[in-house]
């Protein structure tokens, strides 16, 4: 099994500060860590390798110092790491990030499973994982809390939902984003620390991965952040009574009312 784990550098704080002018995250003067959710992806990747053999590669797009964070994944048991770093990648939104990662992953070669954290603790978008799967043209399962089995080029996983979980099976290669319920990340080992210290972590530029610079970084980022807020997941339900016809009529009426209220 060849596993690729995507990691992101985030500020080591729960309270992300936003620049009011640009609506982007202030990163200066704050210690950087691996996005905590990605640590579960790293752990799961190592567990898959320990069980089924193969190799785990960590990849990240970021500034050159992210090499140190990638080295931390080697200390945990990841085999290889590569950093995608280029001025042309700066200012990327989730779309440009997914594109850049997809080009890096294509250069890495054959893979079976790609793992990402469910979201990053700074941007909190949860978009890069699924977008990356789309860019690569492979299926994905989000919010995975347990991998039930990997067999016959298929993977079956439990996907966490608001009030339970779904069991989803798909073919490999596939991308999974994982939640913290999936495992308990390990601490480093001395042997891996010694290995990590000596390991060479290559840095790939836009040219190295054949990336189209119109699609990377600020150039490739159509997103404009207007406002940031946590969406309200609690939606009040309403049970509609009556015959199917009556129910449909009621629903249409209700939706029209809502729609016109919004646009008026």
């Amino acid at each position, binding site marked *: 099994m060849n596993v690729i784990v995507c990691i992101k550098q985030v500020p080591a704080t729960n309270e992300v500060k936003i620049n009011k002018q640009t609506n982007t995250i202030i990163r200066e003067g704050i210690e950087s860590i691996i996005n905590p959710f990605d640590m579960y992806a790293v752990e799961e990747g190592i567990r898959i390798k320990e069980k089924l053999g193969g190799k785990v590669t960590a990849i990240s797009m970021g500034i050159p110092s992210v090499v140190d964070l990638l080295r931390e994944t080697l200390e945990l048991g990841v085999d290889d790491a590569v950093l995608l770093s280029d001025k042309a990648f700066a200012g990327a939104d989730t779309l440009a990030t997914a594109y850049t990662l997809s080009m890096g992953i294509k250069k890495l070669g054959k893979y079976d499973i790609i793992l990402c954290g469910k979201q990053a603790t700074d941007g909190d978008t949860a978009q890069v994982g699924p977008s990356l799967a789309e860019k690569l043209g492979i299926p994905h399962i989000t919010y995975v809390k347990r991998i039930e089995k990997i067999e016959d080029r298929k993977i079956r996983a439990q996907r966490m939902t608001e009030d339970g979980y779904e069991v989803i099976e798909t073919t490999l290669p596939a991308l999974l984003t994982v939640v913290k319920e999936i495992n308990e990340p*390990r*601490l*480093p*080992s*001395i*042997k891996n*620390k010694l290995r990590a210290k000596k390991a060479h972590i290559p840095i790939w530029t836009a040219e190295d991965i054949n990336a189209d610079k119109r699609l990377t970084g600020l150039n490739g980022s159509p997103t404009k952040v207007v406002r940031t807020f946590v969406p309200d997941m609690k939606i009040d339900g309403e049970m509609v009574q009556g015959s199917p016809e009556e129910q449909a009529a009621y629903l249409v009426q209700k939706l029209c009312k809502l729609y016109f209220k919004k646009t008026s």
Partner: protein
Amino acid sequence: MEYFLTEEQEMIKDLAKRIADEKIAPVALEYDEKGIFPRDIVNILAQSDLCGVYIPEEYGGLGGGIFEMALVVEELSRACGGIALAFAGTGLGIYPVILFGNEQQKEKYLPDIASGKKLAAFGLTEADAGSDAAGIQTTATKDGDYYILNGTKQWITNGGEADIYTVIAATDKTKGSRGFSAFIVEKDTPGFSFGKKEEKMGIRASATRELIFEDCKIPKENLLGREGMGFIVAMKTLDRTRPGVAAQAVGIAQGAFDKAVKYSRERHQFGQPISSFQAIQHMLADMAIQIEAARALVYATCRTIDAGAKNFSKESAMCKVFASDVAMKVTTDAVQIFGGYGYMKEYPVEKMMRDAKITQIYEGTNQIQRNIIALELIKAASRSK
């Protein structure tokens, strides 16, 4: 203090500290209260390669010595002296194999200890043979290709939890301690069973049990060294592992000191933090001095041993006595600084005071250690005349 650790020693210490802070500290009070054996922590140590720090590289370890072992014990003991003992007790149980095992024995037993798959224990003490270890009654009778063990060992650390036991038994009762031999006994050998788990004052996360041998038949390949070497095996092993007890003591003392400093700044009486009272300040200063002095002695002893010194009974005894007396004093003072809260189980220092006590007793009481030191001093004086 700068102890000029090598990069690898620094790494070992840091990782042990992380495990102590992140994994042991949160469970220490519960494991103490309920007497839970820390199998989960052992697994974490195993995954981190720490179980094998003192095992030679050719057997899957990291190739360090007593110093590396002591660094791990010290860091783990800051969070819990009892949990640390699962690791330290294994060191005591397996060192006889490292020191006296033949190639087959090393190949058979060391890799599983290094990987943390198995734990070890050391069985010397009996009901009527404590300080006077030469008084043991357990016998091993040669019978063809086997030895038959009979007798009961008492208060054996990791008893019941370990897979590999080094046991000292008399092969020739007429010769006294010169008739003792050391054996490796595997758990689940027929005729080998365990007594009940002892209820202890401290280090309650450590399992202490009797080892009971009733016509327990072990292959003659399990003899360590030669017949008659048992007492030497025991004494040489203890000389090496006593700095481990000393490191445990330093760790417990450091743990109690850290709690005391923090508390003294938080607790207010008479409108000010108690850390503003000179009586408290001096107590803290004395605690810090003693801990650092103990640590320096332990580290120096470990380095002496690892550098290949020949006779270090005196140094080994010195660091054990000094560090364990410091641990007792410092933990008692930590309780004092906490006042009535220090006496309560919800606060961590009463446990540390209970845990510290054992370091003055096991692997040779401090009285016996002083006997050893004095004897060496007198021997040296008589030689130089």
